């Protein structure tokens, strides 16, 4: 039994355009896509280039696109992805510049990570902790999932926001911001929250594409936690936090997300320039007869909703 590896080929040093090679592979399909690549590299074409090291989903080197979706080649069995035409297509990760074959330029990903100062910055001196810095199991528990991140960049490659705006920090960097923001030993919570806000934390589109994390870090929940931390730190003069807080405000007042008030509250009622920018979309809606109400009648028993907000001390836009 054999199958075909359909491989993206490109060398930035010599090629103007990429091309594809179809290479027959003879390993059992119960083995992994990485095994298949290593087999064809050894037996058919030694020039096929890809990153790999540990072969066991620990080093994070071999992330690539497999049949159009990103994952670790060492963690993906051939038979789980084999297409009906007996092929498996392998491509470099999207959202990165290809360098050679399946190898991409990782620099933008690492840049966003290093900007976070990804190391502990305690308030006190190491000498104050001659033996160790103690963290309670409860505090450590919050960091266990993110500690599994191997920086394979699968989430970054899958992120639709990165694909249209490379300025966005991306899921992994925000997960690392969370890792230090929630670390009780760290002293730079506010600075870190401000830094990640500047790197477009609030541009996350809540799409859960990062839920395909091969290490189950699921950065989405960390992103939400970092957003809460920025609000707790008072960093709310920004469309993102204003948007969340004005939605909370309208739900508390009426039970519903009041669209017209949310738009004004997010952009800023007196931000004429901002309101002019969103005007064409609003006008288009209005022309089509989609006119959201200016005033909303509260839902029945809205006092129960108010009570829920008050009991939980949930913040709303002032």
């Amino acid at each position, binding site marked *: 039994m054999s199958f075909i590896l359909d491989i993206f080929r490109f060398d930035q040093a010599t090629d103007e355009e990429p091309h594809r090679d179809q290479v027959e592979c003879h390993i059992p399909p119960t083995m992994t896509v990485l095994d298949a690549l290593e087999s064809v590299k050894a037996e058919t074409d030694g020039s096929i280039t890809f990153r790999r090291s540990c072969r066991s989903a620990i080093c994070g080197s071999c992330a690539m696109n*497999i049949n159009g*979706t990103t994952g670790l080649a060492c963690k*993906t069995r051939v038979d*789980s*992805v084999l297409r009906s035409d007996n092929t498996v297509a392998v491509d470099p990760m999207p959202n990165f510049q290809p360098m050679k074959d399946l190898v991409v330029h990782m620099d933008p990903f690492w840049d966003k990570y290093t900007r976070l100062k990804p190391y502990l910055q305690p308030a006190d001196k190491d000498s104050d902790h001659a033996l160790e810095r103690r963290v309670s199991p409860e505090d450590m528990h919050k960091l266990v999932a993110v500690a599994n991140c191997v920086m394979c960049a699968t989430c970054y490659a899958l992120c*639709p*926001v990165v*694909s*249209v*705006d490379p300025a966005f920090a991306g899921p992994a960097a925000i997960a690392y911001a969370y890792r230090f923001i929630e670390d009780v030993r760290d002293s730079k919570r506010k600075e870190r929250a401000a830094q990640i806000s500047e790197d477009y934390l*609030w*541009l*996350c*589109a*809540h*799409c*859960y*594409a990062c*839920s395909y994390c091969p290490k189950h870090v*699921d950065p*989405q929940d960390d992103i939400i936690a970092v*957003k*809460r931390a920025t*609000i707790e730190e008072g960093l709310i003069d920004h*469309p*993102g*936090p204003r*948007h*969340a*807080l004005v*939605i*909370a405000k309208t*739900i508390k007042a009426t*039970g*519903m*997300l*009041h*669209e017209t008030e949310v738009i004004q509250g*997010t952009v800023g009622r007196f931000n004429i320039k901002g309101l002019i920018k*969103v005007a*064409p*979309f609003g006008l288009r*809606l209005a022309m*089509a*007869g*989609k006119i*959201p*109400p200016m005033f*909303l009648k509260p*839902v*029945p*028993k809205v006092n*129960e*909703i108010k*009570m*829920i*907000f008050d009991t*939980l001390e*949930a913040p*709303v836009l002032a």
Partner: protein
Amino acid sequence: MTATLEAPQTKRKSKSAQMRKYGFFPGCVAKESCKELFNSTMLLADKLGIELVELTAAACCGASVLNDTNRDVARVLNARTYAQAEALGLDDVITICSTCTGHMRASNKELLESTDHMGQANAILGKFGAKYNGGVTVRHLLWLLIDDIGLDELRKMVVNPLNGLKVAPFYGCHIIRPESVNGWESSRNPHSLEDIIEALGGEAIDYAGKTRCCGFHVQLEKDGIAPAMVGQNMRMAKDKGAEAVLTPCPLCHLALDGYQADSAARWGRTDLPTFHLPQLVGLALGIDASTLGLNKHIVSPGLVLQAHDLAPAHVA
């Protein structure tokens, strides 16, 4: 990379499905800017012979944003909604918005999996005499159509087949991801919308954008992001020959319908009319086209519908 799915929660017929009477959570957008979605849903329910009992006192699901402000408030608000459904003897809460589906299912999962969360919610609900017993399942109208009505039955009910109309499905993130919350079908390779389109006599277009994000949730955050995401996806659909788009989510509808004009500069004109799920199903099932709100679209579906002899000119 194949998805491992949880056993679908809907295999066992719910009490609501047996009674053909469901709790109904329309969501805010269907009550505000997309009233045509609410209206066409009610008309479709009539046609299908099911009763949707609107939970009129329910609060917003949290819109995937409330969690950014407070960890608990959306969950407790949703517990209150489920308690209202239970009080009416209904065990299914039907949604017509992908974001409502995902957010409400996530809340329900947290409540059912943690006695702390359930206890916290009921402690607050108790103050006004309400209690959630954990008996509710949140389902989207799309799932109801397939599980409770059935594709065969739907096929039989078609009186106005789509005559090969080429329709690109657009799922919206929160009805498929994360799979740990939704899990009704594979989030990598969903096909429920395709099945519906084909049952109605249309042709489903396959394109990579169908499971990607529309950008709605960040439309106010930074200029041009949502239009770029819309343009990228609609370009793929158009290049595969799509004539229209079908979505189970009014937020996707707003972004796709509203931003194709802005994305044209970078991605070329696409001009794909975007149908709400009950509009297209209703049309095929013979609901009077002039009542489905087809004239409430920015990209008019008029030409496409006329080309396939599906509706007279004046309705869109």
